């Protein structure tokens, strides 16, 4: 019998699973980039355990002739590199799944639940070439052949990946990929598999040129690039999953862009360094996850009191406490919203895609500088680790807006103004002195216990919220604006809802995606107030955005689509659950 792949097009969902240390990440990187350069859209997500070696990790890669935005449950092709990792994802294996791999990694039950199992001796093939570690490249060659990827592009990628290990290693890797290519050609000759996706490509013959020019990027890299574009010159961070990618990206590019990348002794040092840097005229980013951010809270309050700009990136993961360190959740909206003791204005951004991560991180630095308050960027493990192709970021209209004044003699850091914003000077730039104090202070910045000054200063600090509210990121609307049902989501749910709605094809639902959860845009409030039915979708257990909207509008959500098992929503799941509540 010939297995045609994929059963449900147009894209193919490939899952490669194994244990930490097997090089799955390199495999993923080479495959997605080769596929993109061959004209396919790519979308890849990771699910991994909190360990350095062993365990069960998987990478799900969608390769598609059309743009794809999110993770799917469906597995068209499974390539297991260990038995345990294959068992772990057995619920996703159906009659539509083709398993290609070694017999020892595929149990009888697994093989039975799949549509077809083809025993391919990856390790043996690699061993013949030298060592079993080249088996990943055999896999790569096989998948490349299945998708009719350009072998020359693959070769170039392999050369670039391994060139610092010497030409001999490069040659063996290329030979291994060739072997994989031949293995697949053998399967076709024996009528075991038909690659519909390959056939489709061959039939139309046109490779979309615009895709070739797109960039392949992770959420973490997008935040890092956005920070550079925002003029970030200091990153202070303690490594913590899933935020570490931002620190390593900025550290890698620190020298070329004049950035201080400092690994701090703890997150408390991180935020205090960030605030110190802003005080002296820098533009600093503190980056962490929920637990680290909990340690930063007193610092957030300090930034508020001294009216210091500061940008904090929080890559969310499931809590409380250590929780699930390498998984995803949208559980820290309220943590950011209420972080820091005392009352003060703040801004919370929550990008929904790599592109939004870039543009909003860039904007975060300008917002912090303009409004002299903490700006939080809420991402999550799913967004951080997702790799996808997107239009190259356009820096054309971007500016580093510095709101620093040259001080005059008698400068008052906290001069009272109608807007509540005092011109911000920095030490050593002008003839004035810049005095900031975590105690309540007067206009000069000197400590005070005058209670009428106290009231004046609280009012002054809070007054800035009026300005902030005039400058809110607009929500993205998908669907019919007059639809009776309004579904509201924030952050990383953008792509998955977008794609799910395409297949639901209902005219009766409008998706409102919020990239700035605080303060909420007036448009969001109006849409919720006017909705026949108001639903939310959030990756947490209690509906934190729903609670915030209720606080602003008085309106309770009519239905909540929630998820908090540590994994992101998938397209099928959202389709099903929207169907249930519609």
């Amino acid at each position, binding site marked *: 019998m010939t297995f045609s792949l994929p059963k449900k097009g147009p894209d193919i969902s490939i899952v490669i699973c194994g244990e930490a240390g097997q090089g799955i990440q390199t495999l993923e990187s080479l495959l997605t980039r080769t596929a993109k*350069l061959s004209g396919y859209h790519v979308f890849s997500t990771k699910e991994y355990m909190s360990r350095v070696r062993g365990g069960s990790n998987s990478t799900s890669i969608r390769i598609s002739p059309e743009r794809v935005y999110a993770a799917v449950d469906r597995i068209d092709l499974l390539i297991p590199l260990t038995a345990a990792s294959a068992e772990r994802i057995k619920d996703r294996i159906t009659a539509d799944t083709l398993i290609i791999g070694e017999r020892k990694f595929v149990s009888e039950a697994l093989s039975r639940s799949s549509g077809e199992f083809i025993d391919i001796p990856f390790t043996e093939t690699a061993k013949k070439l030298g060592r079993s570690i080249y088996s990943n490249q055999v896999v790569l060659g096989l998948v490349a052949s299945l998708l009719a990827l350009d072998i020359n592009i693959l070769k170039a990628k392999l050369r670039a990946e391994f060139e610092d290990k010497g030409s001999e290693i490069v040659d063996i890797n290329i030979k291994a990929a060739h072997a994989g290519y031949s293995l697949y050609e053998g399967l076709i000759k024996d009528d075991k598999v038909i690659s519909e996706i390959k056939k489709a490509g061959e039939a139309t013959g046109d490779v979309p040129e615009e895709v*070739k*020019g797109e*960039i*392949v*990027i992770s959420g973490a*890299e997008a935040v890092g*690039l956005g920070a*550079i*574009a925002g*003029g970030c*010159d*200091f990153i*202070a961070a303690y490594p913590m999953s899933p935020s570490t990618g931002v620190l390593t990206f900025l550290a890698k590019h620190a*020298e*070329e*862009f*004049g950035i*201080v990348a*400092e690994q*701090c*002794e*703890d997150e*408390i*040092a*991180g935020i*205090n*360094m960030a*605030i*110190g*840097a802003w*005080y*002296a*005229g*820098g533009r600093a980013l503190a980056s962490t996850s929920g637990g680290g951010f909990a340690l930063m809270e*007193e*610092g957030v309050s*300090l930034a508020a009191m*001294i009216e210091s700009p500061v940008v904090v990136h929080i890559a969310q993961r499931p809590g409380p406490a250590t929780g699930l360190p390498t998984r995803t959740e949208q559980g820290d909206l309220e943590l950011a919203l209420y972080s820091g003791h005392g009352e003060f204005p703040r801004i919370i951004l929550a990008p929904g895609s790599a592109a939004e991560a870039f543009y909003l991180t860039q904007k975060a630095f300008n917002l912090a500088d303009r409004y002299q308050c903490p700006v939080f960027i809420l991402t999550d493990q799913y967004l951080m680790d997702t790799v996808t192709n997107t239009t*190259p*970021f356009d*820096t054309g209209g*971007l500016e*580093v807006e*510095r709101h*620093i004044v040259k001080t005059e003699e008698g400068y008052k850091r906290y001069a009272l103004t109608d807007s509540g914003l005092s011109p911000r000077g*920095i*030490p*050593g*730039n002008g*003839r004035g*002195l*810049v*005095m*900031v*104090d*975590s105690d309540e202070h007067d206009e000069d*910045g*000197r*400590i005070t216990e005058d209670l009428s000054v106290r009231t004046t200063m609280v009012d002054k600090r809070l007054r800035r919220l009026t300005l902030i509210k005039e400058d809110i990121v607009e929500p993205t609307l998908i669907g019919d604006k007059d639809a009776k049902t309004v579904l509201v989501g924030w952050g990383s749910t953008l792509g998955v809802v977008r794609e799910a709605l395409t297949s639901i094809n209902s005219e009766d639902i409008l998706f409102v995606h919020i990239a700035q959860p605080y303060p909420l845009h007036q448009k969001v409030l109006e849409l919720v107030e006017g909705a026949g039915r108001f639903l939310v979708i959030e990756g947490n257990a209690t509906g934190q955005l729903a609670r915030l909207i209720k606080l602003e509008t008085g309106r309770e959500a009519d239905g909540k689509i929630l998820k908090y098992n540590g994994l992101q929503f998938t397209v099928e799941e959202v389709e099903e659950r929207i169907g249930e509540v519609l």
Partner: protein
Amino acid sequence: MKKTDFDIEGMETAWCPGCGDHAILSALKASLDNLGLTPGKLVMVSGIGQAAKIPQYFNTNYFNGLHGRALPAAVAIKASNPELTVVAESGDGDMYGEGGNHFIHTIRRNPDITNIVHNNMVYGLTKGQASPTSRRGFVTPVQVSGVMSEPFNPLAVAISLDVSFVARAFIGDQQRTSEIIEAAIKHRGYALVDIFQPCPSFNKQNTYKWFRENTYYLEDSFDSSERLAALGKAFQTDRLPLGIFYRNEKPTFTDNLRIKTPGYRKIVDFKRLNGLISSLAS
């Protein structure tokens, strides 16, 4: 006392009469003045506590931050504008207790800042509890049977981390204290000055008299480039040595990072950024 640019006319402090903080304030101003520093180019960074109020009584830039967190802020201020002179100053509870972790790691980074610690072996602002440097047996309303923990030895910790500069002073001798502070500020790299400072309100044990009787200056022949000898002196706790224990000039935090331009004058290289973005297409 000679007038300096750092003085504030008619200023009143919140310190008790007889507190060593008054003389530290004068000694520091004299040191800065002697070095020809101006208020506009100086930043005083402090945490919380009686000692940490010192910037309030200065005519200069200051960053009076959180309890225990002066050092991380000071490191970043210096890195963001290497043209500034940065002095981080607080008490023993702030620097060695709440901020103990930052104390260790700031020494390791070696930023070109001066760290002055008012060490009175007691908590002042919270009214008389033990501090990390309180001696064993010291009775307080909390340590009712006397302090049981080993006192923190900041000098020995600093030398063990190969600190760039470390000294101890006693404010009963304001002149020598000022000279030591001056040497510390002049030193390129992280410089710690631990200053013994009697607290007449809450520490009736470690008084001016006690410090005078239990301290002595390191001999003129003492070689401050000898790390092990310095460590030996730091370990002496029966009679406590004063003076510069150890000096080791080495590359600073900003030297290592090759930072020269202040952050606010930096221009983002968008051309390079565009190059980096388009490199992700291949």
